[in-house]
């Protein structure tokens, strides 16, 4: 499993843009929003939690279609499916690699973008915490969507149509944590909900994604 994780990470870094691309997309988004809604602190600060979370969703979505597609094209996915490691484990490891290359950089870089969008200072730790808790669920759900569409020629648009509705609960609770943090309210309830969603997704989605992969490899 560790070998597979290292292989995926190595492929992501050497193929170019593995780590940087999601963050760069996030940066562009944070730069575009003030152009759209105006540069005032009073306008930006209330929408900043939502924008940052929607940006994280979209940045996560960007690299999803490559999650299984490349391995499917060169046949290594068939080898992985016949390997002694259960396909559920393969899915989980690939989602983990996806999270390390896109989710983790976002979590680490998020305070910077918070500053750009005039997010109040007291909300910064909550932004980081909510992203750190929520993004693993995004990667795992994305792996499910990628497994559903892996055999399709033009799966990219369909993938976003399938995956984004699944992101809604995560988005609601994640943005709520940050918003409450910005207003200095208690954040425990949405945080627990978000953690519950993430844990449930991590526990159950690998089976659904592996089932979809098996169908597509038939």
């Amino acid at each position, binding site marked *: 499993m560790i070998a597979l994780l290292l292989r995926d990470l190595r492929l992501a870094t050497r193929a170019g843009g593995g780590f940087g691309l999601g963050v760069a997309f996030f940066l562009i988004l944070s730069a575009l929003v003030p152009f759209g809604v105006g540069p005032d602190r009073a306008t930006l600060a209330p929408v900043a939690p939502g924008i940052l979370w929607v940006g994280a969703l979209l940045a996560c979505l960007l690299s999803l279609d490559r999650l299984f597609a490349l391995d499917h094209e060169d046949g290594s996915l068939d080898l992985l499916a016949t390997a002694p490691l259960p396909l559920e484990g393969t899915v989980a490891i690939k989602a983990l690699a996806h999270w390390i290359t896109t989710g983790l950089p976002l979590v680490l870089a998020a305070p910077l973008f918070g500053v750009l969008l005039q997010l109040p200072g007291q909300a910064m730790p909550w932004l980081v915490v909510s992203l750190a808790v929520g993004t693993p669920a995004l990667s795992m759900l994305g792996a499910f969507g990628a497994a559903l569409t892996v055999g399709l020629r033009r799966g990219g648009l*369909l993938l976003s149509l399938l995956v984004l509705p699944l992101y*809604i609960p995560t988005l609601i*609770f994640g943005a*709520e944590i940050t918003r409450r943090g910005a207003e200095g309210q208690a954040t425990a309830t949405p945080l627990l*909900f978000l953690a519950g969603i993430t844990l449930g997704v991590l526990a159950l989605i690998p089976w659904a994604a592996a*089932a*979809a992969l098996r*169908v597509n490899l038939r």
Partner: protein
Amino acid sequence: MSIWKYANPAQFMRTTDGLLPWLVGAAAICCTAGVVWGFLTPDDFRQGSTVKIVFLHVPAAMMAINIWVMMLIASLIWIIRRHHVSALAAKAAAPIGAVMTLIALATGAIWGQPMWGTWWEWDPRLTSFLILFLFYVGYIALWSAVEDPDSAADLTGVLCLVGSVFALLSRYAVLFWNQGLHQGASLSVQSGERMSHVYRYPLYLAMLGFFLLFLALLLIRTRTEIRRRRLAALQAREMRA
């Protein structure tokens, strides 16, 4: 006699062939009677004549949710027991459900404009219906994107299972996110009567009518799908010969 008898496509076609005209007739009568009777009811003392849209809105909204549940059950039957009719029924039900969701959203908007003063409000019920519509669209899109019919049935079945969990989760997450404008349920088994008999009986009739309408449309569409599969099989045999 077992219900699995109808899993045989030939048996299904034979039975529904005789059943369908009656079902279509009953659906037409109930829908027309329910809506016309509803239209002839007196105006509500606060909402005026706008209350009459309820005879379209409530049955459509009810069916929109129930059709998804039916798709979930049909998908489960397909995944567990591999009956093709079940998978085709789930496929046939999805566009009907999507249209029901649209009807509920559209009639709600038309009613909401004079009553709430807005076409759209980010209210939990409205939002969860929009999310439900997105799930329907994704489901239909996945069906049409996958070429091999059995793979498509498998993949959409898995999507339906996961989607059901997340549709339910979104329903309650949305409740957490924003408190609503939409009134509570007017018809409820537990809380007794909150609606005058004058409106209640036509509403029941309209609900029955919409249910029969769904059943009739579902059977017609499933029969079409079965015929399409037979046609594809014949063509494949022709190609090989």
